[in-house]
C-alpha cells in the first residue's frame, strides 16, 4: 500500500522528516516495537532428542523387547550366550543412526537469506548521515541508496537519479528496473512494477537515491516469502508411510502368531521357556529388520547414480517420488531455452532472402551501433540483445572493433525507453555517418528513404506496408525485432540531440532474434509424452512468445490452452482445479501463481515436479511433490527449498532423472518383494513345523543369520537392476496405489508358503532320517540357498531365460 501514497503522505504516516531523519529516541522506540531487521530462524532440535525419536517405531520396540527376553532367558539358563541379544540391539542402533543421518541434512534456507541482507547502510539520523548495520534499520529511517548497495529493507523512494535496481532475488527478472520516486500507483500492482519502491535483498546497479523505510524484518516482501517457507511442510512420501504400516502389520501379525504358538505349546505340554525362545526366534524371523536400512541404501545408491547424470538429489524420498511424476512444470528461460539471444532472421525491405552484401551491411552498421565489448578472445559482453547482434556479425567475420578503426565513433545519443532507439555517430574521412537502431515502428517514423541493393530511394506507402508486415510476421513467430537505419552527412548540427540527428534517415533492414531451445529438449518433451507425463511451460515472458516456443517444442498441442497470470487471478481456485489439465503454458506469472498452479495440479492426484531458481520460487518448490532448482543460475534459497538440483539447468536432465526414479522404484519394489516373501517363508517354516512336530525347525540365531546376511546381499543386488527396455513407454505409476498394489501381497504369500514348505521338507528329511541337529542344519542351508535362488525369480517379471538373437 505504500506505493499508493505520495512521498509527503508516506513520510507523514511514518512520522519521519526528510531533512533530519529520525532522532535517536524515535529510533530506539521503533527498535523496541519492530525488533531487528532480520529474518527469524527456526529452532533446531537437540541432536540427542532426534536420536531418541528414531526409536519411536513399532517394529523397533518389538525387537527391543525380543532382545530383552532373549537376554533374560539366557541368564536364567545360566549360559553366557548373549549373542542373540547383542545382535538384535546392534541392528536397532544401526537403524536409528541411519535415520538420524537422513534427517540431519538441515534446512539452511534462512541462513542463506540472511547472508543476502545488506551488511551496512547509510542512514540520515539526527540531521546527520550515519553508517549503521542493515539489521539496525527501522521503519521511518531515511536511507541513502547508491550503486552497488544491497537494499536493507522495504522502502518508499523519496528521490531518484537514474536509479536502477536489480530485483532478481524477489521477482526472478534479471533486467534492472528503472525506479522513479515521482509516481503514485494503484493498489493492485505486481511487485516488479512498483517503480516507487525498493525492496530488501535487491541490489542497486545504477544511479542513486533516497528512501524512507516502510517495512523491516519478517514484514518485508522477502520476509513474507520466508514465512511461506516455514509454514509449508514438505509432504511425507507414500513409500515411507506404507513401509511404516507394513512394519506395524507384520509386527501385530507376529504377536498374534506368537500367542497362538504359546497356546499350542501349552496344549502340547512344551516347556514355557522354550516357547518363549521360539517366540523370540519367530519375532526375529517375521520382522524384516534389514528392510528400512536396505531401502535407504538403495535410495543412496540411486542418488549417486543420478548425481553422475547431473541431478543432485537433496532429499532422499524424492528419488521414489520422481518415478511417479505425471506433470513437469518447467521454467522457460534457461531450462527449456539456452538463455542466449540469437539473431535468426535478417531482412531488408524485400524480405528474408537477401544477398550477402546487404546482409553484411546490415550487420556492420548494427554492430557498430552497440555498446558491446569484444575482448581478444572474441568474447562478447553487454546487453543480451546487443550481444546477439555483435555475435551474429562476428559469425560473418564482421568485428565492430575493426570497423571502429576506420569509422571512429565520435559521439552518441544513448538508448532510453521513451525514444526506444539508440544512435552512434562515426567519422568516415571528412564525412559523418549516423547509425540508429531501435524498435521498428519508431525507426520507420524517422526515415524518409530506404536502402535496397546499394540504391537509396524515397520511402512510399507500399514499402512502409511491406516493412510493417515483415515486422508483424516476425513478432508472431515470437521474435524480438530491431530495425536499423543510417545517414551519411557532410556536417553535423551543432547540438547532438535526437530531433536534430535522428531525422530523415535511410531505412536499411530488420533483425529478428530469439532465445533458442536447448538441444534435446524437443525430444525430451516427446519422451515425456510417451511416458504419460504432461509438460507445462512457466515463464515471465509475453504470452505470444511463450506460445510460439511451446508449440515449437511440442508442449502446446492441439487443444491445450495458454494463460497469463492476470487471467489466472480471475479464476477461483476451485475452477482452476477442475480445468487445470487443459493448460500447458502459463505466462507472466508471479510466485503466488506458481503455488496455485502446483496445488491445482496436485488436487487432481497428479504428482507434480516444478522448477525454480529465484528466492520467490521457494514456496512453489516446497509445495510441489518434487521441487527442482537450477544449479548454475539458481539462488541458494531455491536450492535449499528444492528436492533436486540440476547441475546443468537442463530440462533433458529432468526427464533422465524421472527414468532413473522409475527404475529405482521398480527395484525397491523387487527388493521389498524379496525380503518379505522370504520372511513369510521363515514364519511358515516355524509355524507349520511346530504344528506338525514338537521342536522348532530352526533356532533364533540361525534365522537371524539368514535374515540379515543371506537375504541382504540379493536384496541390494536387486536394487541395482538395470532399467527395463520399456520403462519410459508406460504411464507413470499411480502414486495413490501402494507399492504392494497389483497383487503383490498375493504373490508374496504364495511364494512365502512355497519357500516355507520346501524348507520344512529339508528339515523333515534330516530330522526323521538322522537327528534334529542334522535336520536343523539341512533346513538352515536349504532356507538360505532357496532364498538366494528365489531372488532370480523376482529379478524379472518374465522368464529370466531370455536370449536375444541378432
Amino acid at each position, binding site marked *: 500500500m505504500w506505493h499508493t501514497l505520495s512521498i509527503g503522505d508516506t513520510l507523514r504516516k511514518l512520522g519521519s522528516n526528510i531533512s533530519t531523519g529520525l532522532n535517536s529516541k524515535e529510533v530506539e522506540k521503533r527498535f523496541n516495537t519492530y525488533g531487528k531487521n532480520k529474518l527469524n530462524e527456526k529452532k533446531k532440535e537437540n541432536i540427542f532428542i532426534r536420536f531418541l525419536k528414531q526409536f519411536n517405531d513399532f517394529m523397533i520396540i518389538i525387537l527391543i523387547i525380543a532382545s530383552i527376553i532373549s537376554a533374560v532367558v539366557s541368564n536364567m539358563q545360566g549360559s553366557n550366550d548373549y*549373542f542373540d541379544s547383542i545382535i538384535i540391539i546392534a541392528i536397532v542402533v544401526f537403524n536409528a543412526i541411519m535415520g538420524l543421518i537422513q534427517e540431519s541434512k538441515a534446512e539452511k534456507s534462512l541462513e542463506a537469506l540472511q547472508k543476502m541482507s545488506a551488511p551496512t547502510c547509510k542512514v540520515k539520523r539526527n540531521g546527520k548521515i550515519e553508517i549503521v548495520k542493515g539489521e539496525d534499520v527501522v521503519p521511518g529511517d531515511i536511507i541513502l541508496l547508491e550503486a552497488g548497495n544491497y537494499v536493507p529493507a522495504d522502502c518508499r523512494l523519496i528521490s531518484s537519479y537514474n536509479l536502477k535496481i536489480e530485483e532478481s532475488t524477489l521477482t526472478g527478472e534479471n533486467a534492472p528496473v528503472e525506479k522513479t520516486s515521482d509516481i503514485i500507483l494503484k493498489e493492485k500492482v505486481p511487485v516488479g512494477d512498483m517503480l516507487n519502491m525498493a525492496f530488501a535483498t535487491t541490489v542497486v546497479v545504477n544511479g542513486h537515491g533516497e528512501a524512507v523505510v516502510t517495512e523491516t524484518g519478517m514484514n518485508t516482501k522477502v520476509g513474507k516469502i520466508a514465512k511461506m517457507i516455514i509454514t509449508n511442510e514438505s509432504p511425507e512420501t507414500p513409500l515411507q508411510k506404507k513401509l511404516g504400516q507394513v512394519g506395524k502389520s507384520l509386527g501385530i501379525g507376529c504377536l498374534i502368531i506368537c500367542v497362538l504358538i504359546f497356546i499350542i505349546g501349552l496344549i502340547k505340554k512344551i516347556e514355557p521357556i522354550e516357547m518363549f525362545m521360539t517366540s523370540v526366534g519367530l519375532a526375529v524371523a517375521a520382522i524384516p529388520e534389514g528392510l528400512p536400512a536396505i531401502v535407504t541404501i538403495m535410495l543412496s545408491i540411486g542418488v549417486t547414480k543420478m548425481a553422475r547424470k547431473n541431478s543432485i538429489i537433496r532429499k532422499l524420498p524424492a528419488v521414489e517420488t520422481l518415478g511417479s511424476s505425471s506433470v513437469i512444470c518447467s521454467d522457460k528461460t534457461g531450462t527449456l531455452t539456452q538463455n542466449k539471444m540469437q539473431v535468426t532472421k535478417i531482412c531488408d525491405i524485400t524480405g528474408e532472402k537477401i544477398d550477402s552484401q546487404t546482409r553484411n551491411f546490415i550487420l556492420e552498421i548494427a554492430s557498430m551501433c552497440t555498446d558491446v565489448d569484444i575482448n581478444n578472445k572474441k568474447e562478447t559482453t553487454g546487453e543480451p540483445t546487443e550481444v546477439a547482434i555483435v555475435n551474429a556479425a562476428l559469425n560473418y567475420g564482421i568485428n565492430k572493433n575493426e570497423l571502429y578503426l576506420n569509422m571512429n565513433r565520435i559521439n552518441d545519443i544513448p538508448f532510453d525507453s521513451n525514444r526506444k532507439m539508440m544512435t552512434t555517430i562515426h567519422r568516415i574521412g571528412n564525412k559523418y555517418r549516423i547509425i540508429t537502431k531501435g524498435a521498428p515502428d519508431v525507426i520507420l517514423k524517422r526515415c524518409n528513404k530506404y536502402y535496397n541493393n546499394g540504391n537509396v530511394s524515397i520511402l512510399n506507402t507500399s514499402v512502409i506496408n511491406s516493412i510493417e508486415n515483415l515486422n508483424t510476421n516476425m513478432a508472431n513467430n515470437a521474435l524480438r525485432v530491431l530495425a536499423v537505419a543510417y545517414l551519411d552527412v557532410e556536417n553535423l548540427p551543432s547540438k547532438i540531440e535526437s530531433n536534430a540527428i535522428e531525422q530523415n534517415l535511410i531505412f536499411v533492414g530488420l533483425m529478428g532474434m530469439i532465445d533458442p531451445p536447448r538441444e534435446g529438449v524437443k525430444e525430451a518433451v516427446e519422451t515425456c*509424452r*510417451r*511416458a*504419460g*507425463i*504432461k509438460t507445462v511451460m512457466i515463464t515471465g515472458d509475453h504470452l505470444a512468445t511463450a506460445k510460439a516456443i511451446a508449440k515449437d517444442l511440442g508442449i502446446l498441442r492441439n487443444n491445450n490452452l495458454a494463460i497469463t497470470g492476470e487471467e489466472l487471478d480471475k479464476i477461483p481456485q476451485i475452477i482452476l482445479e477442475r480445468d487445470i489439465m487443459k493448460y500447458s503454458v502459463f505466462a507472466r506469472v508471479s510466485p503466488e501463481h506458481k503455488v496455485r498452479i502446483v496445488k491445482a495440479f496436485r488436487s487432481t492426484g497428479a504428482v507434480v515436479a516444478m522448477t525454480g531458481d529465484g528466492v520467490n520460487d521457494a514456496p512453489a518448490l516446497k509445495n510441489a511433490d518434487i521441487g527442482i532448482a537450477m544449479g548454475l543460475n539458481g539462488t541458494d534459497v531455491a536450492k535449499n527449498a528444492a528436492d533436486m538440483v540440476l547441475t546443468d539447468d537442463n530440462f533433458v536432465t529432468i526427464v533422465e532423472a524421472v527414468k532413473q526414479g522409475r527404475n529405482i522404484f521398480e527395484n525397491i519394489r523387487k527388493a521389498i518383494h524379496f525380503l518379505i516373501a522370504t520372511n513369510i517363508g521363515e514364519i511358515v517354516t516355524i509355524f507349520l513345523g511346530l504344528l506338525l512336530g514338537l521342536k522348532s525347525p530352526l*533356532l533364533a*540365531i*540361525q534365522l537371524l*543369520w539368514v535374515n540379515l*546376511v*543371506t537375504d541382504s*546381499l*540379493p536384496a*541390494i*543386488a*536387486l536394487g*541395482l*537392476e*538395470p532399467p527395463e527396455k520399456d520403462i519410459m*513407454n*508406460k*504411464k507413470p505409476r499411480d502414486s495413490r496405489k501402494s507399492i504392494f498394489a497389483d497383487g503383490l501381497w498375493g504373490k508374496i504369500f504364495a*511364494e512365502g508358503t*512355497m*519357500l516355507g514348505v*520346501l524348507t520344512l*521338507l*529339508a528339515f523333515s528329511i*534330516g530330522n526323521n532320517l*538322522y537327528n534334529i*541337529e*542334522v535336520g*536343523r*542344519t*539341512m533346513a*538352515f*542351508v*536349504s532356507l*538360505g*540357498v*532357496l532364498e*538366494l*535362488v*528365489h*531372488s*532370480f*525369480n523376482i*529379478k*524379472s517379471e*518374465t*522368464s*529370466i*531365460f*531370455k*536370449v*536375444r*538373437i*541378432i
Partner: protein
Amino acid sequence: MKLQYLRYGLFENKYLIGAFALGVILQVLVVVIPPVANIFKLVPLNRIQWLYTFGISILPLIIIEVQKKLNEVRFGKVIYEYKEI
C-alpha cells in the same frame, strides 16, 4: 547371428550373480567351519545330505519359471500403449 545371452535375462545383473555366489559360499562355510558351526548350533553334513539340500533348493526356480511360462501362454505378452495427454 550372435547370441546375446550375457546381456539379457539370467546374466544381466552381475551384482545378483555375485550376491548369489557369495551367499551360497557363506551358507556352506558356516556349516563347514567347526568353531563357527558351533556358535550357530550346526553340525557337519555328509554327501547325501548335501545332495538333498541343494536338490530341494533348486525347486523354486523350476516352479516359478513354469508358472511364468503358463501366464505368457494364457495372457500373452504385455505391450504398452500410450494415450494423448
